[in-house]
């Protein structure tokens, strides 16, 4: 029977994620053996006499751990958000990034940085502008009587470019010696300065969103049939879609506020997850969460270890994601004949 509660592939993915996180705790300029990492982690819950340098403790617990968990959380949010949007808009070419949520949230967060606002204000402002962006995209794409997959993607690019221009305007007025570099580095995407405190903030918003999406995920199958069929199947597609858009935008906005605008993850991860776990949301959503988390931990690992300087995350995900998107677009076109 295929209805098993924990399919082996999902278990394998979860174990893979744990392995990747552990590996990222060991790796870096200051290499630490897995055994030591284990003991440092265990000493948090059990009484173990430290045999290691206090520096090791700081590196593992204060520097690498919050960073690895943030990468996993951001990846989970982006992967899940992509899978949700693809089902919601019955379109395999979209993600919150493609539909302008990320650039929209970027504007809100950039404005907040410009005004020197705190974490909470930054997140709320990122959410508000993210919602405006995705609503605009949906409105533009809907007002044409054209259900082509590409129309929605084009509308998303239009809205995304518009918000990117507004972000440039914010950069233009920012103080070039203090605020400007701060905004630019944040926009390119980085988890370099993440601390436990910030991670806790983001987790408080995005974990409940992820959990709610997991609970509701079977409805995505029904919604992916299109509005008319969803209604015939006894669903109210307008309300349900709004719930999913709000949840996705909320968690995307807070992760944008934490890590900057990281593109392409939400587009590529669900496709790979679909290849492994199939299109049924009951497996696709958990698979996208696990795979997105592992992918971002790996990307962040490369970002901080590949060169002596940090490589911005947005650059790395773009180098991997853009060619993958081009491939998908081409395949979607040839499907159409």
């Amino acid at each position, binding site marked *: 029977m295929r209805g098993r509660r924990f399919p082996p592939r999902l278990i394998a993915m979860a174990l893979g994620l744990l392995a990747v996180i552990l590996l990222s705790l060991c790796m870096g300029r200051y290499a630490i053996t897995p055994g030591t990492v284990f003991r440092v982690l265990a000493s948090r819950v059990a009484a173990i006499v430290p045999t290691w340098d206090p520096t090791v403790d700081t590196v593992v617990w204060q520097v690498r751990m919050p960073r690895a968990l943030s990468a996993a959380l951001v990846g989970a949010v982006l992967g899940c958000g992509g899978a949700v949007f693809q089902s919601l808009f019955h379109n395999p070419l979209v993600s919150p990034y493609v539909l302008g949520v990320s650039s929209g949230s970027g504007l809100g967060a950039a404005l907040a940085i410009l005004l020197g606002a705190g974490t909470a204000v930054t997140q709320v402002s990122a959410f508000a502008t993210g919602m405006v962006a995705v609503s605009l995209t949906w409105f533009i794409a809907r007002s044409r009587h054209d259900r082509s997959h590409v129309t929605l993607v084009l509308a998303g690019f239009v809205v995304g470019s518009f918000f990117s221009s507004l972000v440039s305007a914010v950069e233009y007025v920012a103080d070039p010696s203090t605020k400007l570099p701060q905004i630019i580095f944040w926009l390119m995407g980085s988890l370099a300065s993440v601390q436990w405190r910030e991670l806790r903030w983001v987790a408080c918003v995005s974990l409940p969103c992820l959990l709610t999406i997991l609970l509701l*995920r079977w409805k995505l*199958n029904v919604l992916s*049939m299109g509005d008319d*069929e969803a*209604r*015939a199947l*006894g669903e109210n597609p307008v309300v349900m879609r709004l719930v999913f858009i709000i949840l996705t935008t909320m968690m995307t906005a807070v992760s944008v506020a934490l890590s900057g605008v990281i593109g392409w993850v939400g587009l590529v991860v669900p496709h790979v997850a679909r290849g492994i776990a199939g299109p*049924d949301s*009951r497996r696709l959503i958990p698979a996208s969460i696990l795979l997105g988390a592992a992918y971002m931990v790996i990307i962040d690992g490369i970002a901080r270890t590949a060169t002596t300087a940090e490589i911005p995350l947005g650059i790395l995900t773009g180098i991997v994601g853009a060619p993958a998107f081009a491939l998908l677009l081409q395949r979607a076109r040839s499907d159409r004949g």
Partner: protein
Amino acid sequence: MDDPRPSAVAIENLGFSYGEAAVLHDLTLTAAPHEVLAIVGPNAAGKTTLLRCLEMVLSRWTGAVRIEGDDLRQLSARDVGRKIASVPQSHTPTFPYTVQDVVLMGRNPHLGTVSQPGAHDVQIAGEAMSALGIRDLAQRPYTQLSGGQLQLVLLARALTQQARVLLLDEPTAHLDFRNRHLVLARVRELADRMDLAVIMTVHDPNDALQYADQAALVAEGALVAVGTPDTVLTVANLELLYGIPVDVLTDGKRRVIIARQGT
């Protein structure tokens, strides 16, 4: 003995307009359990619009519709899904769900917001697939099916809703000769066996002659005639409906409608 049942569907003075343009006016129709009601009419007569009003996909209609005695307007989306199931005229798959996953979606109106289909639902979906002879397709991606098979899958999904009213919008529009009769024969059989009231739109009046108990002739959004197919599908009515000369041929038992064009 005749048991006077309430109508499964009772439509009274149904009207619908897109802006200024009236698409349906003053339609009054009923459909009883076990009964196949065929809506016959030319393109753009409002046949599909009628079904969309009953599905509540279009909600700004006038008049009254009662489903097993309940006012359709008072029902929630979920309740409508429990009472009325429908098979769309065309369906473009986006994701390669398995046939079983698609059929299971019919359980949606019976499941709570956060619940997922369980063993009981899988069993109901299995029975629906067996009833239509597609159980061995259960694990196949539904993107790889022929038009006839896809139609049967969507029909199985509708059966899984366990509704008493089944709406079919030109169920044979994309099917070849064999599949067309296969699907219509199944529909006929299901109406009898599962106590369903079936309302289907047809583009070939012969489908109504062969498979329906009642035929409702619709032109320009208004009812022209309603009754048993043999009594209403007459040369006069058909010529009025389609605007071309037709003949109704018979071998004494069966009847067939053909266009007189080109003879």
